[in-house]
């Protein structure tokens, strides 16, 4: 055999380089499919399908994409106070009515929507010391469209143990409210037989609708980040972000009740919020790898010029079990103070404020989530997981003295939900 030439060694060395090349780089596509169910007791139910596709190319270049489709059904609180007798409301479109029974939290049950969201992101190193990333995100639902773009640059320092980054994002949202955007703090017109005909009702309804004004909003976010590797087992991250939103920030489907001294709801006023919002956030996260577990804890503080301040503490503990199985308990506490213009109701006879909303989502609120995820890594790097979580939301009293009949009613109804998710990585 012709094994005498030294060129054999060269050919062999070249071949062995391609044998070992890219061993540490993931090849081909990674897919992640998930199906999530979210169910509030007696209210919103949602089914969400998530499909992610990631590809890591040579030199740490990475492409990721995501498709989310969710479908919501059910009812959500419209902001009105409950009453000791039944109440009737006009649907957002003006074409119908819905009612809330005595003592019930008024829920708008015409709530039904399907949302489709598509996102794509590309990141790659730029030379030895920088990493850049850019992406886009589009979402579409019946009455809402959003397009967002983001870019960031990161700089490695200190032997890649420190990364500082600066990110910018811009989002354009447009709202196409069902029935049009209500005039802020105008009174909901309810057909109780007082109109001569349908045209007369329609004219009164139309008078509560805006003809001009902004129907969308723009959001600019700036995020300054620091990732610090403390040692092989411990990594920390800190972010500061600023966000400016400008445009139509009111929820066109929410109302604030105007009540008399006996607590009787005399009018439902469409809510009205400021046209700008400035938000600042601070985020800190620590991830520690133990022998057979990973502990992840994070804290987020947000503050905005609506007067809402929030604190979030979240923690996950990832335990590795035998046979590539893992179990991951999860807890999250969230607390926020109410917006300056939040009020559970307005009093009849008092002058109307410029802005008012009774939306519990910008009221004083505590929530907590308790959950657990169980998963198993299969051969060929495939993995499945099941997540079950319990979510509890408890709006808090903001100290407004309940009038008359409201004293005996629940102005701050709490809500429980269950989340069940299956996912499969392949």
């Amino acid at each position, binding site marked *: 055999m012709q094994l005498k030439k030294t060129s054999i060694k060269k050919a062999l*060395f070249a071949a*062995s380089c391609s044998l070992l090349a890219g061993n540490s780089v993931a090849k081909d596509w990674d897919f992640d499919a998930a199906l999530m169910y979210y169910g509030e007791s007696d209210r919103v139910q949602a089914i969400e399908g998530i499909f992610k596709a990631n590809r890591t190319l040579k030199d740490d270049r990475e492409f990721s994409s995501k498709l989310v489709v969710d479908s919501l059904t059910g009812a959500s609180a419209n902001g009105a106070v409950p009453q000791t007798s039944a109440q009737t409301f006009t649907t957002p479109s003006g074409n119908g009515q819905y009612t809330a029974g005595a003592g019930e939290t008024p829920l708008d049950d015409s709530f039904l929507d399907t949302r489709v969201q598509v996102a794509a992101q590309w990141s790659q190193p730029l030379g030895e010391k920088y990493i850049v990333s850019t992406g886009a995100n589009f979402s579409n639902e019946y009455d809402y469209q959003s397009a967002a773009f983001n870019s960031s640059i990161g700089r490695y320092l200190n032997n890649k143990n420190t990364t500082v980054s600066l990110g910018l994002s811009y989002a354009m949202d447009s709202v196409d409210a069902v029935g049009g955007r209500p005039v802020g703090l105008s009174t909901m017109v309810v057909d109780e037989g007082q109109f001569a005909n349908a045209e007369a009702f329609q004219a009164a309804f139309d008078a509560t609708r805006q003809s001009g004004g902004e129907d969308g909003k723009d959001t600019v976010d700036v995020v300054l980040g620091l990732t610090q590797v403390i040692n092989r087992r411990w990594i920390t991250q800190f972010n500061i972000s600023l966000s400016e939103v400008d445009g139509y920030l009111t929820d066109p489907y929410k109302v604030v009740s105007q009540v008399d001294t006996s607590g009787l709801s005399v009018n439902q006023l469409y809510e009205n919020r400021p046209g700008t919002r400035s938000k600042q956030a601070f985020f800190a996260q620590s991830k520690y790898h133990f022998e057979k577990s990973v502990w992840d804890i994070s804290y987020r503080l947000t503050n905005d010029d609506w007067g809402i301040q929030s604190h979030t503490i979240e923690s996950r503990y990832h335990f590795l079990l035998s046979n590539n199985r893992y179990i991951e308990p999860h807890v999250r506490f969230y607390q926020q103070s109410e917006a300056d213009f939040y009020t559970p109701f307005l009093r009849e006879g008092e002058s109307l404020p410029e802005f008012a909303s009774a939306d519990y989502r910008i009221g004083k609120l505590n929530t907590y989530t308790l959950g657990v995820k169980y998963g198993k890594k299969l051969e060929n790097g495939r993995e499945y997981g099941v997540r079950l979580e319990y979510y509890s939301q408890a709006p808090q009293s903001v100290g407004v003295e309940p009038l008359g009949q409201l004293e005996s009613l629940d102005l701050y109804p709490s809500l429980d939900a269950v989340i069940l998710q299956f996912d499969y990585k392949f």
Partner: protein
Amino acid sequence: MAIRALKNYELSRHNSYFSAKFHAMASPCELLFDTRDQSLAEWLSEKGVAEVQRIEEKFSRYAKNNLCFAINNADGAPVEIDDECYRLLSFAQTCYELSEGMFDLTSGVLRRAWKFDCSDRLPQQHQIDDLLPLVGWEKVRFTDRHIQMQPGMEVDFGGIGKEYAVSSVSDICLHHAPNVSVLVNLGGDIQVTKPRERNLPWRVGIENHKQVIPIIQGALATSGDAKRYLLKNGKRYGHILNPKTGWPIRNAPSSVTTHAPLCVQAGCLATLALLSGKEAEQFLKNQDVKYWCTRT
């Protein structure tokens, strides 16, 4: 002093370094870490042992329901492969071409006729003739997606798998601890990720040559096993088989160890030397590599 005996490796502290001993690929294995940082040694041990086990589970011909089993039991059907398998097959293809057909991953089926138990029981020629149609790398068809072989044929990654695992574990250690010298030793196939502090050599015993070899940089691999042979009528039959004849290579050294930058390179050079039979030393000289050759 053994500090920890976890289920898959045993970590020991020495004067200036840590060692992790474990058993894999039918061999005693060892990782040496030139550090006094125990948590680093543990962390690298976990990653290294996991990688060896991953490769063994995937490519061992003894396992059932792994990729190797699927390929060898496809009965003529194409089998889907991944990029790693494709790279190994491509490397085997290069070795096959460079050796003009002597390095052949399909020659393992000849073991059904040959049992190298130091006895004098040679197989009958008809037994070998029955197996030869199942040998021949040129009959294997593969792309980056699939491999297809004739029914009954088998590939045996044993010829490159262990050396590949050594190089792969070295890459992982170098990636995670670029400043620490790690020696990876899987049953005598060895690679060092980088020189130690002050260029101190690692000293490793090579059983087949009954000597301790100092190694500063690069890799060592050994082919051949002095304990696996047959002896009949004063004639010694070593266990390296010629895939073309089905008989042992004549006048081959009993064992060859070579030094090269990477273990996969050293392993292949050692095997090609054995396959050169009586010209083994000449082959190694021509390749300009450091080697240790034992003839018995």
